């Protein structure tokens, strides 16, 4: 009855690293073949980047209508067109102009009249719209400068002459704002959705249970999965950055160093976002509850973290919420690194806040995560 065989104490030395890497490899293969991972990480951000890349880039342009009956050939109009800052429409009727002016589609209407009395040669009548005040102000200063120049063409200045020149700076394109935001969003969605779905389905389909029948450690499963997800995210990030740089002239101040810094920030971001994913996989009762819970986490950040618009444009009551979200700081750090050429030390404050979020979310994840 008793066991007669002597316990064989030969415990073969088991290699945790090998197990972890085998899991990472399997997971990476699986992610690459999963349509949703590829769509969220690459396709969505790329579509947004394409759209904004083609839309933007021109900087500010003023839309000005030329009122019907206005004089066309005069120094004012010629000077205005020469600035390259305005789009002049000369064909719309009075009614159309008024309509568009009210909606702010036009920033102002200009009517130039020849003065029958001779001096001054022209009257320039400008109508602004309250729908577009800031652009109206830009026009106001352009017109002031034009009129000053035109009026003083033949005079010696009595008090002062302003001699201005412009330093050639880096052109801040729309892509420089949009790309870091999209990158952050890509990291957020692959971190949250990807992690939540994978761990939920591995648990639900008893894949993890079968793993537990092997000598693999739990930490190997988590680390292996993390390596794969980080690897995939970084490939995605690199791809997005390169497309942005070579197709849409996304600014990388220090070239490869900047890219490297961005990838380091990406790694940090995706690790923190994976924490949210672990929490979601633990909270979800069924596969269909994962998207809503994940969206509660990703959507507010998508909208409020400066992915599309600068946080400064939000109403003041909303800004504190924005400034509480981790993606805000990732986006902020990314932009500083990419456009301003900041080093990682320069964005330590942002990184610290992301880190605090990471510690907090993993504390929650440890409580909520379920293996079985």
């Amino acid at each position, binding site marked *: 009855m008793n066991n007669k065989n*002597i316990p064989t104490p030969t*415990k*073969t030395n088991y*290699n945790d690293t090998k*197990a972890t890497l085998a899991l990472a*490899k399997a997971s990476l293969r699986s992610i690459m073949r999963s349509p949703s991972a590829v769509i969220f990480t690459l396709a969505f951000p790329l579509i947004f980047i394409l759209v904004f890349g083609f839309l933007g880039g021109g900087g500010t342009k003023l839309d000005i209508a030329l009122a019907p009956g206005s004089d066309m050939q005069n120094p004012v109009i010629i000077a205005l067109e020469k600035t390259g800052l305005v789009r002049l429409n000369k064909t719309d009727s009075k009614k159309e102009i008024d309509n568009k002016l009210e909606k702010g589609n036009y920033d102002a209407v200009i009517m130039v009249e020849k003065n029958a009395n001779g001096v001054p040669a022209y009257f320039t009548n400008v109508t602004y719209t309250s729908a577009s005040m800031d652009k109206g102000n830009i026009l106001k200063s352009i017109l002031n400068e034009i009129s000053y120049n035109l009026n003083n063409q033949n005079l010696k200045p009595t008090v002062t002459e302003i001699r201005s020149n412009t330093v050639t700076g880096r052109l801040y394109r729309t892509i420089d704002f949009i790309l870091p935001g999209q990158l952050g969003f890509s990291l957020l969605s692959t971190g949250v959705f990807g992690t939540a779905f994978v761990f939920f389905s591995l648990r639900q389909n008893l894949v993890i*249970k079968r793993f537990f029948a092997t000598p693999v450690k739990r930490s190997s499963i988590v680390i292996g999965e993390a390596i794969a997800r980080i690897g995939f995210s970084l490939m995605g990030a690199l791809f997005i950055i390169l497309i942005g740089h070579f197709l849409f002239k996304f600014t990388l101040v220090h070239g490869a160093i900047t890219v490297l810094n961005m990838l380091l920030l990406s790694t940090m971001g995706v690790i923190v976002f994976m924490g949210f994913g672990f929490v979601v996989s633990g909270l979800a009762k069924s596969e269909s509850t994962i998207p809503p819970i994940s969206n509660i986490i990703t959507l507010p950040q998508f909208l409020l973290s400066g992915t599309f618009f600068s946080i400064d444009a939000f109403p003041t009551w909303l800004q504190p919420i924005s400034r509480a979200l981790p993606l805000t700081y990732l986006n902020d750090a990314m932009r500083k690194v990419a456009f301003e050429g900041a080093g990682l030390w320069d964005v330590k404050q942002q990184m610290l806040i992301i880190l605090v979020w990471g510690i907090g979310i993993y504390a929650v994840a440890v409580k909520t995560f379920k293996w079985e």
Partner: protein
Amino acid sequence: MEQKNAIISVKNLVKNYNDFKAVQGLSFDVYENEIFGLLGPNGAGKTTTLEIIETLREKTSGEVLVNGFSIDNDANAIKQIIGVQLQAAGYYPNLNLVELLELFAGLYGSDIDPMEMLGKVNLQDKAKAKYKALSGGQKQRFSIATTLINSPKIIFLDEPTTGLDPQARRNLWDLIIDIRNQGTTVVITTHYMDEAEQLCDRVAFVERGQIIALDTPDKLIDNLIASGFERKKEVKKANLEDVFISLTGQEWRE
């Protein structure tokens, strides 16, 4: 009976789920190199017992030794010498069979040739297929292949033939007997008594968490006959399954 080595020794095993007593003091030994069957209705505690021996589930009390290792202290050592096929286990999504075997090789820390493993269960031509695309019998054969990766001393098969057609079932029997003949101990659960009779060297009947009978199938049948039992119907020399097999052929249908 000749002297045999117990490779698994279960003593007074108890498992309670809150109020429910799933296993109530099971004791049995599994001998080296036999095919041992755990039989009994659903909910009798077969799977729970298996999973405790496999170190996948905590016991409430009792003692379990596997190849001399205690499940309390040496779970990891046990995992290295057993192969486990779970009822309804899934596999990592989006991977083909070769890739899954490579994954398991990593998890067990074994160096194997995936094609050779697939050859053992006759699935070489499915090397590039996904697990989900396999037929029922192929899935079970693949599951068994994953249990063999670490050249285990013992493999556990939980209802491996449930839902299979007669050809696939007989096929799996041949595979299991083959594995045993290579020196591996097999512990199997099943609902099919003809299967247990054909396959198992010894069987234990489990009912409400207790073992109510344990012996060779032959002995158990003889005991029943000796108690005066008689089948209502004259037994013919063949049964309907024999008719099915002779009509549809022996070859695999997958």
